[in-house]
């Protein structure tokens, strides 16, 4: 047979290349918008502009019936599920719309749900428990979308047909126009990559389930720490330099001395030293155990 299905390296490479040029288009659109309408307008319509950039790029290539730049680079060709013909115009249109617009629309939808729940109509129609239940579902949905995408990528590494969910939904395959000699030998490494991501996904899923079970305890713990932080910032005002922690720039709490004699909050300095065990002011090196918590020191 003359044409073979494209394998993972080609598809990924073409995708990278497309991403690069779509980003170029996005950034030049952003530049133009900034110079004509100002940065404020740009910040308001940033996401919409990005979608526009993608639609322009794929509209002028895929929908118009040309190869994209990435596909041209690695010599692959879109075909429909029969693998005997180029995808129809409708199919291509659906692909581009799904690819460019669906992440944006999903994002907007998920951001809109909490607002909707707060509105008058929802308050009147739904009981508080139901509304709370729905509000809890939103972050879970977000997580689910992310996990779905990662599973899809893992599946792509293993099976190697559809890199994007949009391609799977529209059933657009890739054929290699010219055989690449090096590509077929790469297959084992992609299998390895696929299994790696599969294990990672399952472990993280199990872990998050485990955390959800003990979730109530954790939530309570984090609540107390937040209120403590808030209290600290509320105290606010201008703190005398003598009483200030050089790391958080607030009133020092639980003063702790380094061996070189500098004072910090206990939390600040232990966090600092867990990445780099030296004094942030004079860079003297010491071990974490050398920190001295000054008891009965902080003025009340």
């Amino acid at each position, binding site marked *: 047979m003359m044409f073979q299905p494209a394998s993972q390296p080609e598809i990924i490479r073409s995708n990278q290349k497309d991403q690069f040029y779509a980003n170029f*288009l996005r950034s030049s659109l952003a530049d*133009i918008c900034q110079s004509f309408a100002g940065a404020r307008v740009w910040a308001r319509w940033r996401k919409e502009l990005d979608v526009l950039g993608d639609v322009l790029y794929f509209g002028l290539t895929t929908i118009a019936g040309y190869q994209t730049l990435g596909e041209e680079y690695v*010599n692959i060709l879109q075909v429909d599920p029969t693998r005997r013909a180029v995808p129809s115009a409708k199919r291509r249109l659906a692909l581009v719309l799904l690819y460019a617009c669906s992440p944006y629309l999903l994002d907007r939808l998920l951001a809109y749900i909490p607002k909707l729940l707060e509105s008058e109509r929802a308050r009147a129609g739904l009981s508080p428990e139901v509304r709370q239940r729905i509000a809890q579902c939103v972050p879970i949905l977000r997580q689910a979308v992310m996990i779905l995408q990662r599973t899809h990528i893992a599946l792509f590494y293993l099976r190697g047909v559809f890199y994007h969910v949009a391609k799977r939904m529209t059933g657009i395959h890739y054929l290699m126009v*010219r055989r*690449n000699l090096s590509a077929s030998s790469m297959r084992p490494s992609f299998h390895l990559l696929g299994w790696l991501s599969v294990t*990672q996904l399952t472990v*993280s899923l199990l872990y998050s389930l485990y955390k959800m079970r003990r979730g109530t305890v954790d939530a309570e713990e984090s609540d107390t720490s937040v209120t403590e932080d808030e209290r600290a910032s509320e105290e606010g005002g201008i703190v005398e330099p003598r009483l200030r922690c050089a790391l958080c720039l607030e009133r020092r709490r639980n003063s702790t001395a380094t061996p070189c004699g500098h004072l910090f909050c206990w939390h600040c300095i232990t966090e600092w030293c867990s990445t780099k065990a030296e004094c942030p002011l004079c860079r003297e090196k010491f071990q974490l155990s050398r920190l001295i918590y000054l008891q009965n020191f902080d003025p009340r």
Partner: protein
Amino acid sequence: MHETNSFIGQFPFLVKTRRLFMIKLLSLEGAVNKQRSSINKMAATKGSSENKETGTGSRNQVVLRVSQLDSSQLDSELHQLLKSQFQRIFQFFKPGVLAYIEPELNAALRLLTWQFSINTIGATLGQRIMNLKYGSEASMTPDLGHRQRLLYACILIGAKWLQERSADLSSSTNHIEAFRKIWKALYFFEKLLSVASLVNFLVFLQDGRYQFLHERLLGIRAQFAEKQSIRQVSFEFMTRELLWHGFAEFLFFLLPFVNFRRIRNFLQQKLFRPSPSQRAETGAIVKRDRSLYKECAVCGEWPTIPRHIGCHHVFCYYCVQSNFLADPSYTCPLCSHPVDDVTNIQPITCDVG
């Protein structure tokens, strides 16, 4: 044979829109497999009809869009390379000594590059690498005319210099009314230019002829310098990078789950197990030896905020507490006395005298 022909027929849009692409495809296939001579013939007939349209044979084959884009990217990379090499000469001078003349420096470097690329061989350095060269559209000659070369230099060097210098020049001449108007007009022109170049890029995406606005203005176009050879894309680096990224991500994900302290303590217990005689010491503590007060059992230094866990040994507060938090089955590294509970970590009290 028949099968392949019918297969190609299944790509109506290909035949219509990217006929040249098909020719290339077919000729490549022909090179791979000489038995498909009839396809070659077909390619040849199509190719010749194409040649009639454009003029001079294989030279005027439409160059792939990606090759043109790659060549321009190579150009800017080369410019950066040259510039950084040049700046390294001045690295021991006062910092910022080149900042005053940076636009002029850029212009000079561009002029040099132009002299040794466009002016002599009729191709930019990036194009040279991609086996391309500029040809003019109107005159049907394969090479650039003298005027086109000069105009190219003016646009690429002069305009870029003006763009980089305009901020300084406009601020220094801002008090003169006429100049202010000129700068305003220029600024507006620059904005328009950015729109025009975006539109140009969009058009380029479709027809693949003029990548930049100046190419369209001058009517010059990238062509193959020699007959195009088979382009091979190497995937090795990309695959290796992907694989290593995958590994790194996996490790970063996995490492926080590993309790290193616990493993270390476990190994320490197994390898340097204290002798029974030492362990026998763990009884009721009546009085510690003086030397024990001076040394933390974990870090071996003078104990900071000294604590004990029920055996003879003395610890820094941090050393014992952090170990116990990470590993609830923590035992004294010297005598294997277990901590068991947080409340067992007690401050040291001793009698004076």
